[in-house]
């Protein structure tokens, strides 16, 4: 019966399926005269790539069955902190699939791509309005790509004024992409401390903000879920030494229509279209990281830029002598612009404001429920009393009192049919659990999630082993990550 078992085993890769000679592709017939010697033998491939040989039904079955081994947002609650897993409206797939958008070549003459350029122009204006900064580039491909743009723009700004600066400040709560970006842009990272209230330690900032500092990178609200009460003073200190203030837009979902980074004093903002603006996460991309900048940074923005003439005709302008140049090919991830633009037109001004309000309401309600159920006794809020759109709990008391770690709690949540929140980030909080419900979840879902956490803690008080060995009901159980790192096997041997 071995054959049947193997056929049912869905962990076989596509390279272990099929048979020689099978095919899904039908090559068009050669309809031109066959010519010989077109490619010198020395340039030819001698051994074909050992790609799989499957028919269409086999390919479909393989990938459809693989998909069923994935948890996804359409299927269940996904409260990953700082990821903003809000619903992905299906209208967006329909409009992104229209041939006029999907089959448009990036090098098509601008006169023949007026719809695309108008869409991008409108999206730029909308993002600029949300940010409170008028000059926008849609080019960066992801949040961290936008961060790189921001730090390179900062470099260009200082170099243009004849200044050589070497340092960039980031809080110790910063997402890892911030320091990684700083190094890629040729600067050195200096960490700024966090004060007990969860915001930037203003005195530490004052001491470190010298004229060798190019930029301070902040997220506001930050990764602790705290809106910095001293943001105006922080902006003054940073601008006072001639440095730029950069806003990591990962947490924008908390403040749309409530407060604008430009008004807080930021010079450069990046957006994550795959967070607040519903571009689906795709299992790890594609995303998009547009940036908005102030007047003083505008000259350095990437090229090409979308321009509009007096008659309302759009064009791409490549003439910008102080521009930092390009960060990628063509104009950016247009497919994500179509979806985000459809979202912004669907919601309008009121809807975006409602989204942020509901995001903050849902997070505070969930926190309140956890307090009511006694969950917060073992997993207290790390900072403050209320929160913005997300909150971070510390599992340190739970670990001491019940003997299970945040990791175990997360794995046991899988058995309850929920995707766990973000774990072990931010690093500043011991046994961190970062929870962001988003505005598209119902009260019933939030209640169910709170009940599940309470149930897991009650169970742990009786029998901590249950959580320590969880999960039990998933396609695989805990995996040997150390083994995977020690002896990496990153392709199928053939």
């Amino acid at each position, binding site marked *: 019966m071995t054959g049947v078992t193997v056929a049912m085993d869905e962990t076989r890769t596509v390279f272990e399926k099929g048979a020689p000679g099978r095919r*899904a592709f039908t*090559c068009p017939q050669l*309809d031109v005269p066959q010519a010989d010697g077109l490619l010198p033998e*020395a340039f030819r*491939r001698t051994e074909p790539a*050992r*790609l799989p040989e499957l028919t*269409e039904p086999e390919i479909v079955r393989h990938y459809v069955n693989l*998909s*069923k081994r994935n948890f*996804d*947002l359409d299927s269940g609650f996904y409260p990953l902190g700082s990821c903003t897993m809000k619903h992905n409206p299906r209208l967006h797939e329909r409009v992104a*699939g*229209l*041939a*006029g958008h999907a089959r*448009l070549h990036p090098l098509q*003459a601008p006169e*023949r791509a007026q*719809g695309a350029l108008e869409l991008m122009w409108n999206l730029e204006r909308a993002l600029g309005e*949300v940010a409170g900064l008028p000059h926008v580039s849609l080019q960066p491909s*992801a949040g961290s790509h936008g961060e790189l743009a921001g730090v390179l723009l900062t*470099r260009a700004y200082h170099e243009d004024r004849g200044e050589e600066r070497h340092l960039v400040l980031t809080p110790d709560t910063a*997402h890892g992409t911030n320091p*990684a970006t700083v*190094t*890629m842009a040729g600067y050195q990272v200096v960490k700024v401390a966090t004060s007990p209230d969860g915001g930037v330690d203003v005195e530490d900032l004052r001491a470190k903000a010298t004229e060798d500092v190019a930029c301070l990178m902040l997220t506001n609200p930050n990764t602790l879920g*705290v*809106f910095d009460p001293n*943001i105006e003073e922080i902006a003054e200190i940073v601008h006072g030494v001639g440095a730029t203030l950069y806003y990591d837009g990962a947490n924008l979902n908390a*403040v749309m*229509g*409530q*407060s604008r980074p430009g008004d807080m004093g930021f010079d450069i903002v990046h957006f994550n279209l795959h967070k607040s603006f519903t571009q689906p996460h*795709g*299992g*790890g991309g594609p995303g998009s990281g547009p940036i908005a900048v102030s007047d003083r940074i505008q000259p350095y923005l990437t090229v090409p830029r979308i321009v509009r003439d007096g008659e309302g005709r759009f064009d791409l302008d490549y003439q910008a002598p102080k521009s930092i*140049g390009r960060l*990628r*090919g*063509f104009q950016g991830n247009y*497919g994500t612009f179509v979806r985000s633009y*459809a979202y912004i037109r*669907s*919601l*309008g001004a009121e809807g975006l404001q409602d989204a942020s309000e509901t995001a903050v*309401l849902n997070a*505070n309600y969930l*926190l309140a429920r956890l307090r009511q159920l006694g969950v917060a006794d073992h997993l207290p809020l790390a900072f403050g009393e209320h929160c913005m759109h997300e909150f971070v709990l510390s599992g340190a008391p739970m670990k001491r009192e019940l003997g299970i770690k945040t990791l175990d709690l997360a794995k046991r949540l*899988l058995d309850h049919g929920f995707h766990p929140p973000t774990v072990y980030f931010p690093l500043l909080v011991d046994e961190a659990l970062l929870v962001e419900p988003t*505005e*598209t979840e119902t*009260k019933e879902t939030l209640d169910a999630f709170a009940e599940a956490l309470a149930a897991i803690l009650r169970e742990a008080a009786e029998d901590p082993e249950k959580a320590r060995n969880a999960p039990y009901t998933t396609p*695989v*159980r805990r*995996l*040997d*990550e150390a083994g995977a790192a020690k002896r*990496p096997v990153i*392709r199928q041997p053939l």
Partner: protein
Amino acid sequence: MSRYTSVTEQDLREMLDAIGVGSVQELFDAQIPAGVRLQRPLDLPAGLPEQDVYAHLRDLAARNVSAEDELTFLGAGMYDHYVPALIDMLTTRSEFLTPYTPYQPEISQGGLQVMFEYQTAISELTALPVSNASVYEGPSAVASAGYLAKLANGRPRIVVSRGVHPHSRETLRTYAHGFGAEVVEVGLRDGVTDPDAWAAAMGDDVSAVVFQQPNFLGAVEDAAALAAAAKPCGAVVVGQYDPIPLGILAPPGACGVDVAVGEGQSLGNRLDFGGPSFGFFAATEAHLRRMPGRIAGETKDVDGRRGFVLTLQTREQHIRREKATSNICTSQALNALAGVVYLTWLGKQGLVELGELLLQRTHYARQALTALDGVEALHEQPVVREFAVRLAAPVDRVIARCQEQGVNPGYALGRDLEEHEDGLLVAITEQRTRADIDRLASVLGAAVAAERVAVTA
């Protein structure tokens, strides 16, 4: 409440009660300083019902001339290949479309296995042992390869052939200005990288060398020779490869290339006015721990089941922070899924057959066009899917005339290469039949003739 948010009056009362505040605004007032509160609504149009949004997006689409609306030979980095229907079906499945990066591997085995299969496919395609799970796209992949070389040897200079796509060269310069390397260009001779100038550019201060295969003018380079010339000085050899011709062209791993990158759009992804697509990134074993981006690895679970996890994460930003190999967090997982499905759909034989078909049709097209009055080959190098010609009439005018006839004949090289003001780059995919090529020849011939008369008149 809206069509995406569900808080009813009753919900609101119960929730505010539990929180212990009188309104949501109280939560904002308590946490956001008054000086930075927005005191007016956002200046944006009011929201619209779904059908009105659809109508608006449809109207915008109608004002674009896509590959659906004209017979197109436009390439220069992205190509109008046929995307099989099963890819649309798979990339819109909830389970692939809506999850996040797989941080909980137990419930992400689908996505992680796709990454593993994708890495295997790219490794096979490039004949290099190590591939990551994708980067954003082609030009930034070239720039990332430059950063890898900087981490590897710390040298100050990168040598790049003028045959590399202009967007890749520009992106490399932008990144290099940040991480501290000088980019030096080597010109072309007879349509390929000038071998003497290339050899002369080598030195102990060279961190990496970069060439493109086929190059921006469609010519097949002598990749092995270019790589060999760089080996003695110890520079990292980077090749930007078009994946489609790798069925018939010697792969980078067989030519001495250390890092192979490229634009993956041709592999099952739409044109989408330039993105999203994906970039592939493959290398020799020696560079494994310097690779940017996510990597999936095979392992076992506690019960001995085969499974997959993100591995070698200590390279990445969330652990190594300022010492990371890149800052990549989100990459292009869904587009890479389309890529591996496409390569599986083509299959071992299909990729070869496609390459041979394109080789023959490209040759036929070059012959047909260069037989026209006022059209000459820009170079005589072997070509496999794209070629360059010179027109004896203003290129932009000729293109405009052709487009009036419903044919887009290709890319005006003068937009990027001032030495080729009269150049036109013509791309062939399997969707361009002999009849299509004959039509191109007819329309182009007439357009050139008309524009020559216009000039002399």
